[in-house]
């Protein structure tokens, strides 16, 4: 029995000249909730489609529950998934849609009503799918993913369109499933959606994995930042050069220079700026902030 729920190595997908996913390499341990974050178009859905055998990778390899992704029939019976939003037959009811998928997958239809209740659709089970609200459709998608009583659950932006209560319910549900031993791989373009529930994180930027590891490591990884600004325009470049010359990573953002470094280095920066004839109008040490890091790791550089 393998120890990883998902393990991919150099997984790539090229569309024409564009690499939608480029040499993605990461592992998701069994029994954890793994957040899969990246901005729009970073390749989350494409990666998930490759893991489900829907599209063929142009390079690399992967394993799900110990089986190669070249043979999806070996692991898919133990995997539940919702990719790129819910998709059902509009003229069938929620219940009929789930019955359809249950029979297709060779599962018992006995669980269907229970699942509908679990996602809060118990009283609308017999309404046609096309009469559902956006959030209800999303919930039906989650119920469908739970049909096989999965060892691995793959959800692509499951909280999209849900109200705050719904988002909370999904979090509670995922946590409960993980506690029972289900591995969860869940994507979002917002780290804030996932930071509360993820044990593990894979971060994508333009098809490349920029971070993979425990959530707690990401926090440790984070550098405090010093934000500095001169009294006059055009001094930012000089400040940037000073910081870089001192061996710090720095960049200009939002009309100020952001320097990675401990708060005490602010004193050195102040002195160097003074020597360069710059009077600082702002000098703020800032503590690590996840969203900021995410932005830094996944944003344009």
């Amino acid at each position, binding site marked *: 029995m393998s120890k990883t729920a998902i393990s991919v190595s150099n997984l790539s997908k090229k569309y024409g000249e564009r690499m939608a996913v480029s040499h993605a390499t990461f592992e998701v341990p069994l029994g954890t909730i793994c957040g899969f974050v990246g901005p729009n178009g970073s390749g989350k859905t494409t990666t998930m489609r490759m893991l489900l055998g829907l*599209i063929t990778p142009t390079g690399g390899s992967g394993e799900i529950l110990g089986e190669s992704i070249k043979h*999806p029939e070996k692991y898919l019976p133990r995997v539940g998934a919702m990719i*790129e939003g819910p998709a059902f*037959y509009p003229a069938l009811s929620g219940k009929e849609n789930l019955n359809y998928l249950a029979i297709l997958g060779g599962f018992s239809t006995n669980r269907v009503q229970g699942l509908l209740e679990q996602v809060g659709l118990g009283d609308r089970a017999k309404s046609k799918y096309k009469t559902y609200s956006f959030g209800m459709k999303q919930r039906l998608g989650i119920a469908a993913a739970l049909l096989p009583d999965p060892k691995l659950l793959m959800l692509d932006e499951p909280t999209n369109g849900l109200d705050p209560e719904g988002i909370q319910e999904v979090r509670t549900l995922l946590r409960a499933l993980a506690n029972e031993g289900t591995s969860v791989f869940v994507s979002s373009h917002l780290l804030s959606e996932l930071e509360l529930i993820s044990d593990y994180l894979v971060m994508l930027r333009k098809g490349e994995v920029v971070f993979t590891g425990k959530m707690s490591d990401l926090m440790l990884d984070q550098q405090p930042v010093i934000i500095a600004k001169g009294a006059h325009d055009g001094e930012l470049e000089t400040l940037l050069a000073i910081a870089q010359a001192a061996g710090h990573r720095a960049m200009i953002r939002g009309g100020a220079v952001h320097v990675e470094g401990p708060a005490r280095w602010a004193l050195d920066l102040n002195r160097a700026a003074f020597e360069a004839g710059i009077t600082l109008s702002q000098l703020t040490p800032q503590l690590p902030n996840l969203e900021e890091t995410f932005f830094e790791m996944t944003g344009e550089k």
Partner: protein
Amino acid sequence: MWNVAFSELRKLRRPTLFFGTMGAVVFFSALFSSLLFLLIDSPDGNSDRGRVVGRDVLGLATGGVQGFSSVGGFLGIIALCVFAAQTAQEYTYGTLRNILVRQPGRMRVLAGKFIAMKLFALVMIILSGIISVTASILLAPRAKVSTDLWFGADGRHALLTTFINIIISVIGFGTIGMVLGLLLRSPISAISFGVLWLLIVENLLIAVKNSLQDWMPGAQLAAIASGGKPRGMTTGIEYSHALLVGGIYVAVGAVVASFLFVRRDVSN
């Protein structure tokens, strides 16, 4: 494969789809067969394209299934539409990804869907047969058509062969519908392309150059349904020729579409 077929049948038994289609089948079967007898003395003809089918022809052993046979081409077009829509909508609804996650064997998905749709087509054909034969039996006395030969051994044989020919033809049309659905991935394009081709383009081409009749897919399948050359006619397509050429079209289409379906990325 059977799981796919069973689940597919649940979709096909949806009341609007099932009763809608069967309603159309009943209506047109009754209409075609009734007109054959009701308009028997009309100078504008009583059969498709203004052909006149006289009392002598209707009085033959095959007379009882004449109506059934003429509605065969129409059943084919219905099958084409149903098969095309049921296949292509998996792309437009995005439901194909759910299907393939639950059943990654893509050939099995195709085979299962095909079996379910064949059953649907079979129900359609049996219903059409019952309606058109019943209508013929009821209306023959009024039209002074002798029905003596209909109930003999030759009559039973005619019923059986017509039934089998219509099944072959309808499944051929349905397969073409499924192929179009897989290739075009949109119900509207697949149906409009299929219907326009069969009803308009082929007829135009044949009108321009008559010999093309022997090579058009729709004409072959229609000829199979009507059992080859109409009796007593010199023009028309030979049954065995229709079976061969039509079979080649359907087989090539099916192979190409399945190959693409199995290989192609599913990103809808």
